[in-house]
């Protein structure tokens, strides 16, 4: 039980439902949880992925960027 109450834990969650009042329901590892959106400036929609820190979304996750980074890693030697 203690393990889920850590301050350093940041997890990625997907928005399932916006419930207004700066809150949303998100799923993380299959578990539905109410999360706080008030610290995010960007608009968040159902289906978006966010980085959660102690229950608050602190950033939208940009998988497009992540994929670009992976693609940029060349397999060939560059030296």
């Amino acid at each position, binding site marked *: 039980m*203690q*393990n*889920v*109450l*850590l*301050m*350093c834990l*940041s997890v990625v969650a997907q928005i399932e439902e916006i419930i207004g009042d700066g809150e949303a329901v998100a799923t993380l590892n299959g578990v539905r949880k109410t999360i*706080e959106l*008030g*610290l*995010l*400036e960007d608009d968040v929609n159902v289906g978006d992925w966010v*980085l959660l*820190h*102690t*229950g*608050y979304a*602190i*950033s*939208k*996750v*940009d*998988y497009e*960027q*992540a994929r*670009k*980074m*992976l693609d940029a*890693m*060349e*397999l*060939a*030697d*560059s*030296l």
Partner: protein
Amino acid sequence: MKEYSDYLTELNEKTAALLTKITKYCKVLNRQINVMHVCGTHEATVSRAGIRSLLPKNLRIISGPGCPVCICPAEHITTAKELAKRGNIITTFGDMFKVPDTTLKSLSHLKAEGHDIRTVYSAMDAVKIAEKNPDKRVIWLGVGFETTAPMTAYELMKKPPSNFYVLADFRLVPPALDLLLSDPEHELTGIILPGHVTTVMGLKEYEEFPRRYGIPMTVAGFEAVEFLYALEVLLKMMVDGELGLKNSYTKVVRYEGNPKAKEVMKKVFKVVDAKWRGIGTVKQSGYDLNEDFREYNARNLIDFDISLEYDLPKGCRCGGVILGKVEPEECPHFLRRCTPETAIGPCMVSDEGTCRIRATFREVR
């Protein structure tokens, strides 16, 4: 369509390619390379994946002051314990619950003695407890780095009930980096910046560092492949003689950080000189509540004197471990008297502590 196994193969190939490049760069550099990260979660990534055992001999990954529980001053815990003894409800993250102060007693001991200490998942849960217990004072232990601080600020901006108090001891990464980089005992050649601190704060405040200290920097993610990618980016800068500051965690880190989080912190906190456990006072390195939020400051409830001269248990070398000057293996207690089950110092108690992580994921070299 691509199968799952195709992705895995691709990822494995990329990881292998990154390692090959890292090895090559180290060979070209042909000198000792010391890369420091300042994040407990990065240490977990490195130790869990056994990354150190895969790296060339002249590349050392050093774990810096990245565990908020470890650097939280012993006074904070002693104060929280005193406030608990006075009939207040203490609310805290689970990580803080087991950390002893200099008496070797933690909040968990006080709970066992019948005092009201509650571990919660977030600052908003602490506010809810205050709403449900209007006749009691509820004290929220506000600790952590820039990643954890905005939540407390945000809750205070929402005007919580007047029986809600914060004992704020947030700590800031840039002043600690300044300290490490100007330390003549360290010969650091590269810095991996913490991924989630920079998610909040952005990169701007680190802009001057590479030139000031002649050292490249990059931000890394927390998957092993993301960490290796950042390492490769860093080494490439060294090979090219580039003193850059690069974002290798574009998945969540933006250059400007999270403007809203920064704004609430600016409204609620003031920057103060602050004590780091095992290190001492670092100038302008902490957040406390500013005058506008004075009524919520738990320090106003303190009518007792707490000042500790030595803040680590006897023989514990956490101070050196936190600064990356002592490897846990060099501490005589490591895995002898001090184990995850019989932890002596904060670096072994905390899940983010270097001693704890090293003990959990023993490496084969």
